[in-house]
């Protein structure tokens, strides 16, 4: 059969036309942002200069990109889709590649050996960056996003103030360990419980709210917690924050304090280095993440988890089926908040310093963005999104070679938010449900069980 695209003589003309249009639009869009630059001269006066070359690059990229998209890429994709449709092969099939099927096992093994791998490759001093900035940082966000996923992804309650629970956990650890000298392993569960109580406290007044209204109230709640932390200076030391928070120890057996007699490095006769503590923390947060995932997977198969999902779908139907929506919502808030609290106390132990600065609205937004980008409800998708978003930010810091291209003044970190937004737009355009948009059913008749190899179905419930 003749190809509809190639038989269409107007195809090329259309591509050229669209390319020119895109160029014109790009020209006007970037004229003021890119084409003109303001700077201060010697007299501190603000003057401007033009950057026509850079503007020309932007326009050319837009025009050529559009031309190629319309002229070649789109026809190619359409052709492939058409062929697939003709041959009757559905894009969704149960047969997945070997890598795809065992992705989670690979990921888990990789995470387990990751600290040692980085030690091996870049040495003690170099691996600090990879274990701490990449490993721990990303895993904290994975855990936060998985915690928020219970509230937003499963129960469908849009929470814009999730960082409040993170703050509650962090300050619980910081304050109780500074004032009462309690250890990390005592305070970790306590922080979770405190955060869960705050979750219930937030839950009560917002029981009747849904959607936008709920979002506004939770947003306000997040701000209230932050403002209390700033202004209750007697206890929280306000914006100065709490410094010198005790480190976590290996269940009280080995300490990571340099002076302590049971210092980890001393006991094992190793050269003193901060990398041991970081590796220890890496495994702690990894364990916390796995706990979060395990609890989420188990709960999804239990009546309460099913009630959360049903609540997300239709509240009225839920009630008419005998589900207590009040209890369901409160447990969702409390469970989500609890994991936020765990992550918070871990954050305080890792950082050794907490201040209200760390718990601004932007953090809530980032966590929510990770959940949405990853695909609400999908643990795998959210983990991937966390790696991309948080890891991507860290990678930007490393991109000093870009200075060769854009000049020595170029600081890639400053473009973080721009890329963040760009990434969101691209993902939402091409994958509107997030990286992993499909929802794994939690119940099926026996014959469906054999096919299940993916994360949310693992373990046969």
């Amino acid at each position, binding site marked *: 059969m003749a190809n509809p695209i190639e038989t269409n003589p107007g195809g090329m003309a259309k591509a050229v036309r669209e390319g020119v249009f895109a160029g014109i639009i790009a020209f006007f869009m970037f004229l003021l942002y890119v084409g003109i630059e303001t700077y201060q001269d010697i007299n501190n006066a603000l003057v401007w200069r033009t950057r026509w070359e850079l503007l020309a690059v932007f326009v050319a990229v837009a025009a050529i990109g559009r031309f190629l998209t319309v002229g070649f890429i789109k026809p190619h994709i359409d052709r492939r889709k058409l062929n697939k449709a003709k041959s009757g092969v559905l894009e969704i099939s149960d047969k997945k590649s070997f890598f795809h099927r065992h992705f989670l096992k690979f990921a888990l093994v990789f995470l387990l050996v990751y600290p040692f791998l980085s030690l091996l490759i870049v040495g003690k001093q170099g691996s600090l960056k990879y274990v701490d900035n990449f490993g721990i940082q990303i895993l904290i966000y994975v855990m936060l996003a998985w915690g928020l996923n219970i509230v937003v992804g499963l129960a469908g309650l849009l929470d814009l103030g999730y960082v409040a629970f993170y703050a509650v956990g962090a300050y619980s650890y910081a304050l109780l360990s500074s004032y009462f000298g309690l250890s990390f392993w005592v305070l970790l569960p306590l922080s979770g419980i405190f955060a869960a109580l705050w979750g219930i406290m937030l839950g009560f007044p917002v029981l009747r709210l849904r959607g936008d209204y709920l979002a506004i109230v939770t947003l306000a709640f997040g701000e209230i917690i932050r403002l209390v932390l700033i202004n209750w200076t007697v206890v929280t030391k306000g914006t100065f924050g709490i410094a010198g928070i005790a480190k976590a120890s290996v269940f009280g057996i080995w300490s990571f304090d340099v002076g302590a007699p049971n210092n980890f490095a001393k006991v094992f006769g190793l050269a003193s280095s901060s990398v041991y503590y970081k590796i220890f923390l890496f495994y702690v947060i990894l364990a916390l993440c796995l706990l979060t995932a395990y609890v989420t997977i188990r709960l999804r198969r239990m*009546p309460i988890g*099913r009630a959360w*999902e*049903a609540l*997300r*779908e*239709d509240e*009225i*139907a839920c*009630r*008419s*089926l*005998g*589900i*207590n*929506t009040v209890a369901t919502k409160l447990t969702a808030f409390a469970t989500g908040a609890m994991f936020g609290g765990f992550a918070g106390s871990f954050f305080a132990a890792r950082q050794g310093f907490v201040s209200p600065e760390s718990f601004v609205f932007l953090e809530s937004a980032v966590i929510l963005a990770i959940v949405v980008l990853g695909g609400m409800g999908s643990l795998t998708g959210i983990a991937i999104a966390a790696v991309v978003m948080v890891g991507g930010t860290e990678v930007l810091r490393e991109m000093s070679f870009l200075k060769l291209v854009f000049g020595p003044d170029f600081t890639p970190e400053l473009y973080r938010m721009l890329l963040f937004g760009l990434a969101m737009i691209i993902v939402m355009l091409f994958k509107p449900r997030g990286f992993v948009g499909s*929802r794994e*059913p*939690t*119940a*099926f*008749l026996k014959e*469906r069980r054999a096919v299940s190899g993916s994360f949310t179905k693992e373990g046969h419930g």
Partner: protein
Amino acid sequence: MAGETLLSVKGVETFYGNIRALAGVDVEVNKGEIVSLIGANGAGKSTLMMTICGSPQARAGSVIFDGEDITKLPTHLIARKRIAQSPEGRRIFPRMTVFENLQMGANLDNLKYFKEDVEKIFTLFPRLKERQSQRGGTLSGGEQQMLSIGRALMARPKLLLLDEPSLGLAPLIVKGIFEAIKKLNKEEGLTVFLVEQNAFAALKLSDRAYVMVNGKVTMSGSGKDLLANPEVRAAYLEGGRH
């Protein structure tokens, strides 16, 4: 076949804010009966259905189910008295599979009968069996209605409330669904209380029926009598057949 009274609604008044939607309604449903409630848009049919379920609650009057006053109970506790409802607009869970939807309907504390009940519903509506691992939202309107009824049946109800099961469905599908209801009633003695716009089909199916106008019951009688009644014919049957 009329047995003892299962549901009795006495002098119920329900308000939306200051607006009185039900102005003293009396309705009785006996065990093993199919009773239908017909009336024009805005007559208060669905409100009565919702009031029985406790959302909104009646401001005056009482709802007695199986000898127990349920007027002031919260909705989820009423549902646990085994009053199952297939709500108006079906309200299935769109992103959950057909099977999961059915599971949500089951009594969560007692899953002893779960498999047996699922099989029963799959025999009643074979289409649901074919589509069991499909998401609820991808079903056609008629299949969604079957799912909604099936989900309600999973609770092993003593009383099944159906709010406009024919809404937006083709006549042939409505016929199929009504036959299923009839079968449930005949074979299992299920008591059904049905709200319908489609008066003709509803009256034909029912043992007894009530006609509602402006929040009040204006007429009642056996399905056959009402079908023959000239007033009912003029208002609800022939009016729709131009």
